[in-house]
Each structure stands twice: as structure tokens, then as C-alpha cells.
């Protein structure tokens, strides 16, 4: 039976879409969500989560390889079984995928299985998926609604993004990989070229390095993880290089020659030379682009810009009744940004009082390479570029008791304050577990604390978090343990 009518239909069940659906249901709206492939989207099935599972295996392997430095003796050598490492990662995804199905059911959200197209404002038709299937797939959840026409007062596009491809270096799934293939290798490549050093590229580079591959990272910008603070990036680069990663910045993969079971990348370096690097595989991680095609956006006149749907601060497009959130609505393309954007959008639709557009300067970013990198707010360079008078505090892992005890004494926490107002405008970290630390500064920023409240906050001892306070103290010339 088609023709069911809803208050809200959300297209796409990634972290943005499914969270928006739950919030909509909480607000008493009759809600449906359309998914063509996998509940939980890329994040949960092919992105954030399964890579963290892989990286955990890598981390344990790294620790084992350093067992001796902890006074531990490992008889023989610890080795990775690719098949099992991948299987574990897929298992983690499958478990969470099932979790999303449960959440939809619990919140009485209808799941419509198929590919949606906006036919007119307030109406979609759902047909068969045209997307090539990426194996392994989880089974289609029970009780989903099928193809047909559905109407809703509000339609939220949350279709996410997909890997961007460079012309001439299109991924083929065999020798040139995207994150899909990189996440489920059959055999461990002995050597790899990673094109792009954003979060995705550097995480895979770090993973494969831990697994023993010779890895070369090629980045066009002057630093790895180009959005991060230059000092943090340089610190991370040094650590990565110490682990045996080869990193070429201001370098560009101009051409890729495919061999029988290898690729040769022609890399133009900054001095104009071309370096030929032959490796088993090449991972293309040159960013992602919004999934705006095939949705019928053009016919309805929904405005797009550089591959993303144009929205206002509340997810509204230029066409009444049509909204967009998450990656498809523009950068930063991060799951947590999508989630929050979705909540703002649906709360605005429901008329919840006190809803404000997202403060984009308060969106944290985390990269799970070894060493980890985490940040929120302005980098030092950005702050200066904006003409702000700043105070910068730094604190090194080498001076923190817990870090030394953990055997993780390489890292740094940097804080940036507006000199006049004491506003915390940036926090940047590199080192062990910093992805779990950054939220402290995110909360601080969101509550609009100044240096004063941070200085009067009691951080527990002995923890890595003490470095956060020391960094703040350092910005004001009051550092204690340094």
C-alpha cells in the first residue's frame, strides 16, 4: 500500500538522518525514514565505526610490539590475521546496524526500503536502489515498507556523501581503492600509496603501517591533515614518520600506471620532479562529495552549490517543505555535525522555542591515527588571519605523569584564547587518547567559559586531562608542572 502520509520523511538513515528521525518522533511527529542500503549509513557501516575497529586491532598490535618496554615478554611474534581483523570490524558494524533498526522500531519510525526521489514538494516516490551493492551487506530489516509514493509535510534530505574521485585516477576496486575496499582487504598489501592526508587518508595510512605495510602518503597541501593547526600537524607528522610512514607534502599524484598486481604513482613533488612510487595498492582519499544526484532536486529547483544543497541555519532549502542536513548540506562533513544539524532542523520544524543555528566554530574534529589528533575552534593561523589578539598555551605529554606511566609521552595540547575577552577560541591536541579529551574544551566553549573558569576547574589526578588545564595556565603564564 502506498500513499501513506507523514509529518516528516527523512531520506537517508546515516547518523544525521536516523538521529533526526528519533528526535522527530520524540517531538510527536509521525516520521518515516528512507534507506536504500544500510541503516546507519556510511558512518556506521563503512566509515567512522568499522575503521575504529580496525584501528583498535592496529593499536593492540603496536602495544604488543612494544611489550618489552613495559617489562613484558612476548614469546614469539604477534601477527595480524587480516581475515579476522576485517571480520571483527564487520561484526562491530553489523551489531550497530541492528541497533539502528531497533531504535527505529522503538521510536515507531517507519523504515521505507528503497531509493527516494522527490516528485513534488511534500511527495516522494521510492523505487529500487540503483546503487551498486558493496558486500558484505546486512539483511534488509524486518517490517520495512516498500516501494511506492509517500507524502509528508516536511522532507529532510540526509543522503550523505561518497568518495570523490580524481579524473584519471578513478578507483577501480582492485588496485585503486576507496575506503570501501580499504576497509575489507583480502590480503594485507605489502606497500601502499595513500592519496590525501585528511582524516580518512591518514587513518588508513596509520592502520596499514601498523599492519606492516610500507606506506607513502601524498598530500597536495603543505601539511598533513590540512585543516588542523600547523604546529599540531607538524608534531603528528614527526611521530608518523618515526613509525616509518613516508610523507610527501606539496606533492601531487599526477598519473597512476596499473600493473598486474601493483600500481605506479607518478608523484610531482614541490621541486617539480616526478617521483615514481610503485606499490601494491593506492588508496584514493581525496575527500567526499555530496549525494545530490537522482533525488529530483533539479526539477524542483532546489538550489545546490559545489555538490551540496544550500541551506539556511535551520536546514531549510530555498524550496518550502524541503530541508537538508549533514554531508549533503555542506562541510564540515562529520557525523556529529550532521546529527546536530538534524536536531536543529527538526526542532525548528516542530516549533521548539530557543532553537539557534549551529555555531560552526564549536564543532570538534577527531582523527584516529597514531598519534591521535583532536581539535575544536580556530587554529592559531586562522585566529591571526582574523586579526585576533591571542594568547597561546602549550603543554607537552612529556611532562604529564599519567602520560609517562602509560608510556605515551609524545604529544601536546595547545589552547588559544582571545587576549581581550579570555574567550577560548581554539584547542588542539595530538597524542594518546586526545580524541576522548577534546570534549572537555568543547563543553567549555559551548558554556562560554573564559580562562578563569577553566583555571578554577579541578581536573582529576593523575590523568591526561590535567594537561588541558596546564595548557590553559600556560597561556596565562601560570603553568605549574613545566
Amino acid at each position: 500500500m502506498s500513499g501513506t502520509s507523514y509529518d516528516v520523511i527523512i531520506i537517508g538513515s546515516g547518523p544525521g538522518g536516523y538521529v533526526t528521525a528519533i528526535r522527530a518522533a520524540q517531538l510527536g511527529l509521525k516520521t518515516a525514514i528512507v534507506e536504500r542500503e544500510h541503516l546507519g549509513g556510511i558512518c556506521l557501516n563503512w566509515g567512522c565505526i568499522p575503521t575504529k575497529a580496525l584501528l583498535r586491532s592496529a593499536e593492540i598490535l603496536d602495544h604488543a610490539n612494544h611489550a618489552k618496554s613495559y617489562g613484558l615478554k612476548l614469546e614469539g611474534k604477534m601477527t595480524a590475521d587480516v581475515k579476522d581483523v576485517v571480520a571483527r570490524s564487520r561484526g562491530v558494524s553489523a551489531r550497530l546496524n541492528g541497533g539502528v533498526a531497533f531504535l527505529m522500531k522503538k521510536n515507531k519510525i517507519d523504515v521505507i526500503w528503497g531509493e527516494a526521489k522527490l516528485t513534488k514538494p511534500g511527495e516522494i516516490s521510492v523505487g529500487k536502489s540503483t546503487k551498486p551493492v558493496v558486500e558484505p551487506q546486512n539483511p534488509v530489516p524486518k517490517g520495512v515498507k516498500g516501494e511506492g509514493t509517500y507524502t509528508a509535510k516536511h522532507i529532510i534530505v540526509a543522503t550523505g556523501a561518497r568518495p570523490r574521485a580524481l579524473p584519471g585516477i578513478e578507483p577501480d576496486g582492485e588496485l585503486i581503492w576507496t575506503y570501501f575496499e580499504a576497509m575489507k582487504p583480502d590480503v594485507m598489501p605489502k606497500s601502499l600509496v595513500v592519496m590525501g592526508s585528511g582524516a580518512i587518508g591518514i587513518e588508513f595510512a596509520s592502520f596499514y603501517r601498523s599492519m606492516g605495510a610500507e606506506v607513502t602518503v601524498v598530500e597536495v597541501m603543505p601539511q598533513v591533515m590540512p585543516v588542523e593547526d600547523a604546529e599540531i600537524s607538524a608534531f603528528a607528522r614527526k611521530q608518523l614518520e618515526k613509525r616509518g610512514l613516508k610523507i610527501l607534502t606539496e606533492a601531487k599524484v599526477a598519473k597512476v600506471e596499473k600493473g598486474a598486481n601493483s600500481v605506479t604513482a607518478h608523484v610531482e613533488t614541490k621541486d617539480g620532479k616526478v617521483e615514481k612510487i610503485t606499490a601494491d595498492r593506492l588508496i584514493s582519499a581525496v575527500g567526499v562529495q555530496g549525494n545530490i544526484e537522482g533525488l529530483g532536486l533539479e526539477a524542483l529547483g532546489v538550489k545546490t552549490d559545489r555538490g551540496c544543497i544550500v541551506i539556511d541555519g535551520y536546514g531549510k532549502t530555498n524550496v518550502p517543505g524541503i530541508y537538508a542536513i549533514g554531508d549533503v548540506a555542506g562541510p564540515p562533513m562529520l557525523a556529529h555535525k550532521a546529527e546536530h544539524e538534524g536536531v536543529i532542523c527538526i526542532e525548528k520544524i516542530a516549533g521548539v522555542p530557543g532553537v539557534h543555528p549551529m555555531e560552526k566554530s564549536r564543532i570538534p574534529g577527531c582523527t584516529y591515527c597514531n598519534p591521535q589528533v583532536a581539535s575544536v575552534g580556530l587554529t592559531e593561523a586562522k585566529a591571526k588571519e582574523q586579526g585576533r589578539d591571542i594568547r597561546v598555551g602549550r603543554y607537552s605529554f612529556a611532562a604529564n605523569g599519567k602520560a609517562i606511566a602509560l608510556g605515551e609521552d609524545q604529544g601536546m595540547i595547545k589552547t588559544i584564547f582571545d587576549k581581550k575577552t579570555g574567550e577560548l577560541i581554539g584547542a588542539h591536541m595530538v597524542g594518546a587518547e586526545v580524541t576522548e579529551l577534546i570534549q572537555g574544551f568543547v563543553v567549555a566553549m559551548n558554556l562560554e567559559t573564559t580562562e578563569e573558569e577553566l583555571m578554577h576547574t579541578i581536573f582529576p589526578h593523575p590523568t591526561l586531562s590535567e594537561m588541558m588545564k596546564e595548557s590553559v595556565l600556560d597561556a596565562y603564564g601560570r603553568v605549574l608542572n613545566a
Partner: protein
Amino acid sequence: MPIKILMPALSPTMEEGNLARWLVKEGDTVSSGDVIAEIETDKATMEVEAVDEGTVGKILVAEGSEGVKVNEVIALLLEEGEDASSLDGAAKADAAPAKAEAPAKSEAPAKSESAAKSEPSAPAADQQAAPAKAPPAPASDKGERIFASPLARRLAAQDGLDLAAISGSGPHGRIVKRDVDEALKSGTGRKGAEAPKAAAADKPAAAAQAPKAAAPSGMADSQVLKLFEEGSYEVVPHDNMRKTIAKRLTESKQTVPHFYLTVDCELDALLALRAQLNDAAPKDKDGKPAYKLSVNDMVIKAHALALKAVPAANASWTDGGMLVHKHADVGVAVAIDGGLITPIIRRADEKTLSAISNEMKDLAGRARSRKLQPQEYQGGTTSVSNLGMFGIKDFAAVINPPHATILAVGAGEQRAVVKNGALAIATVMSVTLSTDHRAVDGALGAELMSAFRQFIENPMSMLV
């Protein structure tokens, strides 16, 4: 250690004042009880007395400084045996907060930091350092806590904005940075004295600097200015008294449900008694009478006695409960240059007419020279405002909270009245009682007015 002389709180509610004048200079020797400075508060000029003896080592707040915070160090006193060299540490410690007040001085936290280090054992130094860092959690005029983020508080302090005038858009109405930014743009909540920076952007700079007073006002300054041609007016900055009048009376009209009761009182008997009493006043050797009663003195007494006769009307509204006062303390509005002030005749019901009269003369005189002590004009249970001398027949006054009533007194004039079915001439005075309906209902107010008229028309009853 030099002794710190702090900006005194002249009343429990005082937060800041102006340092009007120094009566000593650096190097002067003072002993306990000497008057060393004059402080101007919202209503009065007060003298500051030295508590300790010593030599004035350093004056830290210049004469004429406005908005000096209570407890800020205004001068340092050297004790016997101390010389100027001991000032250095202390002066430095205390200079910091003053600097921090200035928006441009971003070094302030660091400075106060070093100051605190130089005097680790002095708690006063810490206290002084505090304002340099974070302004205290502010409270609205009603004493409610204002919820604002630390950053919003600091921005408001630096830009001289009154948080109480800013509405918050954060969770549960919390004031956040964007609200302060918004207020800065629109000019909402701008405080007069501290606003030069924000005002500089506005075109008629002088006008924009004119304080908006703390009172919520309908039109923004810019809207008002737009209506008049530039140069067609002069901007007179508000003094503290003007700001206080604006704030308190706006608050009164906005929060106190007023209603009005008017009665006519025949004055002939009262005037006759007054003449008789004045004639009988004993004279001193220069021929000066011991008292000279005015009609107003008798109105004060009559109003006080009426409140004693109808005690339920001698009340103040509070959310927690009704304050039913045991004494009739009558505030009397005294017009002074640039405003008015309401000194209080305490226990007017118990005082003789001559005592009231003489006390009134003393208070009015000192009110005009702005020398009243705060306790002489704060409090009271009711007030009297008399515009009869200007020929005003009748008017309605604005209640001065926490009073529940105010009596507006018109001129005593000869009017045609009907007595026993025939026209007659009588001296009649119209009075109007403004009443806080939360505390005093209509019938109760009417009862009070009836008692008042009884005393006025049978004035001998005031003497027993």
C-alpha cells in the same frame, strides 16, 4: 603594611559612587575621625572619615572619579614608622583592578597576577585582583540572579553593558555571547559612564554617550534623537539622582498597581489653630520663635495619625508577606536643585507638631545642600508630596516603593461649598492618595483618607 582606605558603602544597596572631592592631600597627617573625602551617591554627598591615624601616602582614585566601586581602595595611609617605599607593593596590587576596568587593557589578568604574587599573604590583594578577572555574578534590580555565560558577563563588563537590560537567548534564557554582541550592535543596556567606546561609532557622539539610565525605557536613544534636528537641543548628562529617580519611579509605575483616592478637606479650623499656636510660640532673646508651624507640618502629623488609626494601611507589600509597620515614618518630598529627595520624619505619629516642624526644616535644609545621610532618606512607610505652594489644585503622585501610599497635597484655597443647604465660603484643600493595591484595597484606603480628613478638619485632636 600601609592601611588601605576603601570606598565606603554609604548604604546597604550602594554598589558604586563618585569620589567628589578629596579634603586631604598626599603627605597630610590625619587622625581618626578627620573628614578626608566627599563621596557622592545617588542621592547625597557624604563625608568619609578616617578610621585610623597616619599619613596620607597615596591617593589612588582621583577626585571627580565616577562609578567608583564599593570596597575599591581609594587611598593608602602610612602608619607611624612607614615611609613611601612601603607603598610600592600595595599600590601595584591595587592599581590592577582599576586598569582592568578599562576595556582596552588586556594585560589586566597578568598584572593582577603578579600583584597577587608580590603580596601573597594579603587577602585584600586577592580581593582586589578579583574584579580584574571576572565581574561578580550580577543581579537584577529586583535582586534576582541574572543567568549569563562567563564570557557574556565579561564582554558586558568590558563594553559597559548592563546585563539586566539584555534578554538571553541561551538555554533557559541564559545570556550568551551572541546576545551581548546583539546588544552592542543595537545599543541596548548601554551604561552611561562606561560606554564611550561603544558610543564612538554613533554619530551624535555626545548624545549617544548620554546615559540611558538603568530604567527600561520605551524608545532607544537613537530613536529619540532621530526626531530632533541635530543642534536643536543640548544633551545634559544624567547625574546619579536623575538616574535613580528614573529607575525607581519607572519601576514603581511598572510594578505597583496604583489607584487614587481624592478628598476635599476644609482647612479653616486648621489654619486658625496654626495661627494660634504660632502666636503662642515662645521667643528667644533675639525674638526668634521656638517654632513656626506650616500647614505641611500639620499634614504630616495628620497623615501619621491617620495611619496609626488605620494601621492596616501602614503596610509594605513583599512577595513573602505583608509588612505591617508599627510606626508611621513619613517621607516628605523636598524639591532640590536638579531633582528631589524624600527625607523621613520617623515616628511622626509620636512627635509634637513643633518637633516635626523643626526636624523638617533641618532635613530640608540639608537635603538642598545634599548633605543627608542615607538613613535619613531611605525607608519610611509612606510619603507626602505637597505642591500646594505652587497653586496646584490636585494631582496624583507616584508611589515610592516600598511605601504602599503617597499623599499628594494641593493648595488650600477658598471655594464655594454647600453647608446646611446654603452656599458658603470655606478654605478647602484637595488631597489625593496614591495607593498600592497589592497592599491596600479601596475601602481601606478610603478609611485612611476619612481618618486623615477627620484630623485635618478637627485639628485639636492632633494635639491630644
